[in-house]
C-alpha cells in the first residue's frame, strides 16, 4: 500500500527523491513541481505530468510531505505541498542511496 514500486522512471524511485528535493527548497503545487524539475534539468528530464500525482499521494501517505489548499503566486487555486521533518530525513537517506548507486555504476563503466 503506497510503498516503492514505480513505473515511469529510468532510475526506480528517483521521482520521489526529485519531488522531495524540489519541496525542500520551496513550497510548490503539482504543476509548479513539474515546471521546476523540467527547468532545473534544462528540459532533459521530462516527467509525464500525470505520474506526478500518484507519487505525491504516496509521499503524503508516508508522511514525508504535507498538502494544503491554497493560492499560488499567480492567483490560481491549487493544493500546495511542503516537506516535513520526516521528509527531510527521507530525502537525506535517498540522496545517499542514489549517490552510492551512481558511484557503483561509474565504477562498472570505468572498469576493465
Amino acid at each position: 500500500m503506497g510503498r516503492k514500486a514505480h513505473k515511469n522512471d529510468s532510475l526506480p524511485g528517483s521521482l520521489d527523491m526529485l519531488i522531495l528535493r524540489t519541496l525542500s527548497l520551496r513550497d510548490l503545487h503539482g504543476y509548479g513541481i513539474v515546471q521546476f524539475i523540467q527547468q532545473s534539468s534544462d528540459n532533459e528530464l521530462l516527467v509525464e505530468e500525470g505520474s506526478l500525482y500518484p507519487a505525491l499521494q504516496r509521499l503524503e501517505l508516508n508522511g514525508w510531505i504535507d498538502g494544503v489548499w491554497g493560492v499560488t503566486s499567480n492567483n490560481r487555486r491549487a493544493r500546495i505541498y511542503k516537506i516535513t521533518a520526516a521528509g527531510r530525513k527521507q530525502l537525506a537517506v535517498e540522496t545517499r542511496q542514489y549517490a552510492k548507486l551512481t558511484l557503483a555504476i561509474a565504477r562498472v563503466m570505468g572498469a576493465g
Partner: protein
Amino acid sequence: MTDVLRRLRYWIQSAKRSEALREEMELHLAEKAAELQADGMTAERARSEARRRFGNVGLKHEESREIWVTRFWSELGQDVRYGCRTMTANKAFSALAVLSLALGIGANTAIYSFMESILLRSLPVADPESLVVLNWHSRPPWDGSKEWVHVIRGVQGILWPGDKGAMVSGMFPYGAFETLREGNPVFSTLFGYFNGHNRNLAVRGQATSASSEYVTGDYFRGLEVLPAAGRLINSEDDRPGAAAVAVISFATSQNRFGGPANAIGQSILVDNIPFTVIGVTPPEFFGVDPAMAPDLYLPLHTNVLVDGTGAARMYGDGNFYWIEMMGRLRPGVSMAQAQAALAPHFHQWVATTARTDGERANLPALMLNPGAEGLGSLRRQYSKPLYVLLAMVGLILAITCANIANLLLARAAARRREMAVRLSLGAGRFRVVRQLLTESVMLASLGGAFGVLFAIWGVRSLTLLLSNGRENFTLHAELNWRVLGVTAALSVVCGLLFGLAPAIQSTRPDVMPALKNGRGGGPRRRAQLVLVVAQIAVSFLLLVAAGLFVRTLNKLHSVQLGYARENILLFSLNARQAGHRDPEMATFYANLRKRFESIPGVSSATLSQSSIISAGMAGGAYRGTMKIGAVTGVTIVGAGVMAAGPRFLTTMQIPILAGREIDERDQPGSPSVAVISERLARTYFGNENPLGRRVTFVDEKRDLEIVGVSANVRYGGLKEGSPMTVFTAASQFPPDRVTYALRVAGDPLTYVRSVHEVVREADSRIPVTNVFTQAAEIDRTISREITFSKLCTGFAVLALLIACVGLYGTVSYSVAQQVGEIGIRMALGAQRGAVVWMVLHRVLLLAAVGLAISVPAALSASQLVKSFLFETQPNDPGTLALAGVVLLSAAILAGYAPARRASRIDPLAALRHE
C-alpha cells in the same frame, strides 16, 4: 503509530480525497492549457495538448487512489456490489440456487457435527491427552477341540474381537488392579470402574431407574474433576466397611432434588440399600464412556452391599475379570514407555493365576490405548454409518454444484457480450474471472448461511432418528465454531467449484465473434454434457444404495418371528432392587400378573425374564449345557432358554402344537417342566412324540419334563436369533427382573396409566421401566436399518430430482440452440415423432453413458456397506436393474417436455428467427 492512524484516516476519507484529487488534476490541466495558450495555441488545442501531456487522466486518478485504498479491498467491494446487482436481476435463478445449496450444505453440516462430536471431542476433564486406557489381548480362548482354555473363568462385560481373531478386553481381575496400582512409576494415578447397570433409586419415596457406575477411590482424583457441590468419592470412601456414600450426576440432582446444593447430605435408597449423597458432578461430566452417562457413582466396595455378600468373591478371584482401568501418565512418560514398564509386571501377576500349561501358553498381554476420547464403544458403533452418510450427502452437494455450474454455463452464453465488452475495454482476464468467482462465492455463502438454519433442524431430527427412544442417549451434536467454520469453508469451496468453469468459459479471449453475434458452442457444450453425465452417475449410485437398504429392511420385516407383533404392551419391573427376595418375589410377580389380567381391555397377561426379541442380550434363564434325557444324552446345541410365566404362548399368540403351555399348575414345588419349539422337537426327537421326555440342565443339575411343543419362535433378534427355544416356568426359574406382556384391545399405549396404577398399589417402590409396544420394541432392534433405509431413499430421490432438473435444463438449452436445425429438418419432411425421438435418443445416450460409468463404481462402493445389509448381496442384480430402470424412466420424463416442444416447432418461424 501516527503512520497507521494516517493511513486509516485516508482510507476512511477516500471518497472526499478522491474528489479533491480530481479537482487538483483539473486545475493542473487548466494551468497547463493557460500556459500553452499564452504561447500562442488556440484554447481548444491548448486544452487537448495539455491533456495529452498529462497522460491518461482516468488511469492516473485510479493509480493515485490505489495508494490510499488497497486495491484488493476496493476491487472486492466493487465485485460484491456488482454481484448483488446480478443476483437481484436474476431472482428466480438465485433463489433456486441458494435453496439447493442451503439443503446440500445444511445436510453436510448436520452430519459433520455428529462426526465431530463422536470422533473428535475429548473427555471434559483436565489434560485428557495424558490419560490411557488399559486393555489386554490374547489369542482366542478355544483350543483345537473347541474347549475353553484360558485364565479367564468368569467375565462380567464385553470381550471384543481384535485383529486376526485375537481376543481383546478392557476388564481385569481385582488382583491385577491392586498389583499395578502399588508403587507405580509411570502413572501418577491408576483408577478403576465398572458398570453398575440400572438400579432402583428411591428419593423420598419416589423410585425410578437410574444408571450407575462403581468407581475406585482415585477415580475422580485421577480424572481431575471438581464437584459442582459437596465433595467427590476418595480413597477413604472406597474401603470395605466404610460408610455408604454416593455421588450423583448434575442432571439427577436437578431432576430429583431441585438443584445440586439441595442434594448434599440427603439419604437415598439404591436397590433398597441406604446411601448418603456427598457430592454432585459438574454438568458437562459424563464419566469415561461417551456412550453412557451414569446418574449415580458409587464406591467400588459398596457393590457388596448392593449386590449381596456373594459379590465379595469377585475381589479375591484372580480368574474373574470385571474391573476396567485407566491411568494418568506422569509428565514426561510416553504411552509406549508406560506399556514397556508395566507389561512384564502384569505378565508376572497373571502367570500366577494360570492353573494348566494350556492356560500358561496363552496369557493375556497388557496393552495401553489413548484415553483422551474415552472408551471407544460409541465411536465403534457410529463411525462407519456416519462416514457412509457423509459420503452420500457429499455426493448430493457435488451434484447440486454441478447443477448450478450447468445453469451458470447456460447463462454465460447470455452474458457473453457483456464479458466481451469488458475484456475489450482493457479489463484483465483474471480480473473478470475474479469478479465472476466473487458472484459464485456470494451465492454459495448465502446458501451456506441458510444451510446453517437447515442444519439445526437436521441435527435435531438426526438425533431423534439415531437415539430411537433410548432414554439417556449421550450423543449431543452441536453447531459450535469448528462446525460453522467447516460450513463456511465448504460454502467458499462450493462457490469456487461451480463458478470456475463458467467463469473461465465466459472469458475466452475470442472476443470478436462474441461481440458480433453471441452464439457459442464447443467446449462449453462439452462441459455441460460432462456435468449432466456426472449427475446421472451419482444419482445411480445413490439409487442403488437406497435399493439395497430398502431390500434389507424388507428382508428384516419378513423374518418370521413366530409371535404377535401388534396389540401387545411390554414393560419391565425389578422387584429385587426394591427389596423383595425369593420366594416371596415370585409370588409377588405372579399376583401382579393376575391383577394386570383384570384390567378392562386386557385379554391376557403374562411375564417372562425379558422380551423375546431382547432375550439373547439380557442373558437366558440358563446358559450352560443342555442334554436330552440324562446327563449322558445328546447335547442340545444352539437353543435359547426362556423363563416364561403362565399363558405366555396364548398372550404372544404362539400356536401350541402339542401338549400344553406353562400355566398355574407349575409351582416351585411341583415337577420342573419345559415347553420346546417345533424345530427343537424335530431335530432331536424326529417324528417321535417328545411329550413326557426329559431335558437336563447339566450345570444346575435339574431335570425338566417336556409338557408341550410350540410353533417355531425366533429367540433373540431378527438378525442373530435362533429358531430353537426352550421355555421354562418362571416360578421354577425365578428371574430377578421380569418383563410383562399384555395382550390388549386397541392401542397398547392407552393402558400405560392403568399399569402404573396397579404397580403403585402393589408396591410404590418399584419403577416401571422400558414401556414399549411390541411393534416398537421390534423396530428398536433394527432402528439403524430403518434409519438408513429412510435416509437413503430420501437422498436418492433428492439426487434423482436434481439430476433430472439438470437434464431438463441441458436438453431445453440444446433444443433452443438447435431451433434452426430442427426447423430445416421439419421443413424437409421430418415427422413430429422423428423429432421427438431425435431429442430423446440423445437423452438416452447421456443416461447410458452415465450408467456405464456408474455401474462399476456402484459394484465396488456397495462392498463398503456390506456389513449393514441383511440377506442381500452388495451386487444384487435385482436392485441394480431396478435402479437402472428408474433412472432411465426419470431421464426420459425429464427429456420429454423439451422433446415435445421441439416437435412443435413451426419450421417457418424457426427459419425466420435465424
